[in-house]
């Protein structure tokens, strides 16, 4: 019973991990296309080109897997896995619905999530260094610098929610949620979401993969399936970030009929946020490297600290 239960949860998480990022990817094709006044891929599969991603996957699988001659072969090959696996682990602990509908309840959920998400960047660093390409190395360095700057505001914003809920377990935080947390933690939500975007290197924070300057940053030398894994890790990252923001700041499965439809609320909120992620990509120009750093240190961190203070004051006032 216990083993079967664990196995079922793991399989469920794996399925979600394989499906949700693809849905986000397909949504990106369509959302970007429509925001730019075009149709996007329309033919593959018939209905609005739904099979385009499958075709892309087949294309990636068919491509030759090239390792540059000067590269550090083992690390070059290992890097995509290091980039992708952390998101799978994080997805395992995000609560989807009430009554233990979660891959695996972890006691210190917030810490687990932030810690493991931070490891993903090692994949970019390893890939960028091992490619033996100056552009890749520059991209990897930018990735590392960006992660170092944006991890702090993200942690502070998450700490604010943990303070409000009085627990660091993710299901516990959702259980403790009330609707007035949304205005109360609004600044924290903004900081968390923005810092998360930067950690995923999504536009407008995509300086590490700025194609007009350094081709594709750390992933320049990658082809075929390994490149696809890096791309997949980006979309998995979007799912994870939106899921986490939902759980921490938007009340997760809370909503009308949450007893039976809790999982649906989580999914709806997650995808609404994912839509915002895609929207931002189409809307905002890329931040320059120095603007990027200054934004983290002079805007996000003070905001996160202000949110922490606000949380503390309100928490003391209502207790």
């Amino acid at each position: 019973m216990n083993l079967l239960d664990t196995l079922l949860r793991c399989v469920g998480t794996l399925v979600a991990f394989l499906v949700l990022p693809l849905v986000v990817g397909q949504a990106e094709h369509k959302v970007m296309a429509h925001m730019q006044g075009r149709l996007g891929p329309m033919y593959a599969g018939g209905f609005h080109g739904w099979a385009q991603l499958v075709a892309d996957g087949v294309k990636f699988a068919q491509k030759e897997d090239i390792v540059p001659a000067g590269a550090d072969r083992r690390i070059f090959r290992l890097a995509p896995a290091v980039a992708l696996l952390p998101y799978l682990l994080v997805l395992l602990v995000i609560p989807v619905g009430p009554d233990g509908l979660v891959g695996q309840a972890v006691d210190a959920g917030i810490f687990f999530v932030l810690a493991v998400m931070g490891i993903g960047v090692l994949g970019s660093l390893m890939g960028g260094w091992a490619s033996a390409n100056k552009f890749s190395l520059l991209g990897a360095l930018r990735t590392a610098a960006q992660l170092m700057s944006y991890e702090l505001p993200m942690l502070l914003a998450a700490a604010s929610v943990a303070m409000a809920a009085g627990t660091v377990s993710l299901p516990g935080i959702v259980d403790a949620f009330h609707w007035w947390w949304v205005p109360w933690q609004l600044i924290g939500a903004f900081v968390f979401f923005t810092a998360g975007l930067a950690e995923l290197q999504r536009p407008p924070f995509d300086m590490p993969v700025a194609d007009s300057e350094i081709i594709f940053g750390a992933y320049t030398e990658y082809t075929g399936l390994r490149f696809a894994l890096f791309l997949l890790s980006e979309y998995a990252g979007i799912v994870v970030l939106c899921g986490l923001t939902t759980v921490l700041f938007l009340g997760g499965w809370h909503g009308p009929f949450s007893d039976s439809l809790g999982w649906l609320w989580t999914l709806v909120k997650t995808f609404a946020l994912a839509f915002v992620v895609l929207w931002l990509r189409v809307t905002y120009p890329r931040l320059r490297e120095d603007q990027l750093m200054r934004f983290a240190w002079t805007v996000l961190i003070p905001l996160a600290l202000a949110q922490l203070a606000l949380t503390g004051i309100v928490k003391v006032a209502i207790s």
Partner: protein
Amino acid sequence: MSALLAAAGSLEPAARSYLSPTGQEIVFLLVGVLVLGAAVVSVTTRQLVHAALWLVVALGGLAVEFLLLTAEFVAWVQVLVYLGSVVVLVLFGLMLTRAPIGRSPDADSGNRPAALAVGVASAATLVTLVVDAFRSSWIDLSGPAGTTRLTGEFLFSHWVLPFEALSVLLLAALVGAIVLSRTKDDRAKPRPGNLRTALTKSKER
């Protein structure tokens, strides 16, 4: 302290045999061997970046050891601080300065014997200390000894002073780093964004 011990089990000598280890103990030992191996490779390899990556394996293995001891909170903090930040910083520093692919001829220094002596001495001290402190005691891991709540309660009720002292130390280190990294000359530097005007001005001179 006694409450912690009560929560974590007693330090009484164990009435258990070491000849029938549980699965958890076997995994603990295996991971321990892995950590030791990774640590040794990390200091002996001639490839700088590989050394840092082996350090990742060693530190990650330590996190697994904490997990096996049910100290979940400590394990995640270990991952967050050491894997997510310290090693990334190390790699960042290496790549920013000198990280050739392949062997670095100057990866060995003449201080190797001294470093070995220091390492062995500190390891011997720590091992003696821990072995002497715990002897053959048996700590029951089935309790809530490692949960975040318990860790937090002990940290902020019994260990507040060391905690605060460490905070002050870290703050001092932070301030020191900022002071050291400030440039001495106070020539007006071109502000980012005004680079072009600054360049043309210097040409005019």
